[in-house]
């Protein structure tokens, strides 16, 4: 069997997408932690275009971009399928996976802002989350139906990182009363053994996010005379 290596970064939800997919499929791999923002020569060699994690290297061949890696994992290790078999359902899954990618910045803007800007950002985030609640999840337990799939993995950061981001930014967006089904999905997703056993330390994540937000806010110009 060819060697599998994963270059990742502890606090990064994107790295965890790949970890979860590999673990759900029972694929053995070697994990290499990148000490970001410093990038190792190997990382730069394997991902010269974007110079980012995660990068999966299988039999010496690198694959970059978490969502590209997820599809590669699904096609290379077909056991425990994470995408529907039906072509239309698979297309719907890919649609939501793209949505997860496209809306990631919108869902994170409130972390990078304060005051009125933050209020606006929260409103925009809520619109996106409402779409997830009503149209993506519907009455299903998971985005993939009765079992987790790549769509759940793509949104997985909402189940753990989001709450730490909320805490650091001083906002509470996903609640049991405004987004009940999403709130329930978060609980169910975190209860899956592979997910539960593969999450970063909450304390370390909070410390990392605190420093990150401080750096971002120190760059925001605050006008005089308020």
């Amino acid at each position, binding site marked *: 069997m060819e060697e599998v290596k994963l270059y990742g970064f502890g606090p990064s939800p994107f790295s965890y997408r790949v970890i979860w997919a590999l673990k759900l499929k029972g694929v053995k791999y070697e994990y290499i932690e990148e000490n970001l923002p410093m990038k190792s020569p190997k990382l730069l060699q394997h991902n010269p*275009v974007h110079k980012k994690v995660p990068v999966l290297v*299988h039999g010496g*061949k690198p*694959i*970059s*971009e978490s*969502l*590209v*890696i997820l*599809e*590669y994992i699904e*096609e*290379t290790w077909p056991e425990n399928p994470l995408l529907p078999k039906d*072509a*239309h359902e*698979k*297309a*719907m899954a*890919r*649609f939501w996976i*793209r*949505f997860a990618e496209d809306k990631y910045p919108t869902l994170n803007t409130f972390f990078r802002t304060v005051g009125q800007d933050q209020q606006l950002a929260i409103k925009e985030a809520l619109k996106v989350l409402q*779409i997830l609640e009503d*149209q993506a999840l519907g009455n299903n337990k998971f985005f993939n139906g009765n079992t987790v799939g790549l769509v759940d993995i793509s949104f997985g950061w909402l189940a753990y990182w989001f709450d730490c981001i909320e805490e650091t930014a001083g906002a509470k967006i996903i609640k049991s009363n405004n987004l009940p089904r999403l709130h329930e999905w978060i609980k169910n997703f975190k209860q899956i053994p592979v997910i539960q056993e593969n999450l970063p330390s909450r304390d370390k994540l909070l410390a990392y996010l605190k420093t990150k937000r401080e750096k971002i806010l120190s760059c925001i110009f605050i006008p005089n005379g308020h």
Partner: protein
Amino acid sequence: MAEVKLFGNWGSPFSCRIEIALKLKGVEYEFIEEDVYNDNKSPLLLKYNPVHKKIPVLLHNGKPICESVVILEYIDETWEGPSILPKDPYERAMARFWTRFLEEKCFPAMKQASWSTGEEQEKAKEEATELLKILEGTLSGKKFFGGDSIGIVDIVANFIAHWFIILQEITGLELLTQEKFPKLGQWLDDYLSCSIIKENLPPKDKLTASFQARIQAATTSK
């Protein structure tokens, strides 16, 4: 009643991609023109794409599929004929990587370089040039991004071969030239010579006129 319908617009590179793919596979379809540039979207479009309210939307046996690249993958998996994506998983991953690169990096930068002005445009031109250098590199030893024949990356790159080139001519921008990018220059010639591409791109004069009208409207409204 047609089994396959495509909601699109004559001038959209996104719906054009789908027409190329359907023709490649020999699929008969009904094209439904949506007046998107005048924000005059039909109730059916809004019904079939409630999340984004955009074209293209492919309707197959009454079921809608949205987002051009998702549709391209669906077409490849549903109908026999020339492959749009490679068969090997690693090659497929590379095709998907470059498709995303085109969509997320090249398209916005080249659009910005074409439509913005002043400092914003200078920055966009620099970025677009860097991205074109990367694309030039990936064509090493290959006729098309897909190898010997066009594939998904070539299809998604349609905006470069036609829309961007036309905008360059109108605005006098000289970002993508044969001298600066010989491999891309050759790719442009080979790509535009493919009958499946030639026959499915919107007419150059019509697109030119439409761009010129937009530029005129933008300058008079200032």
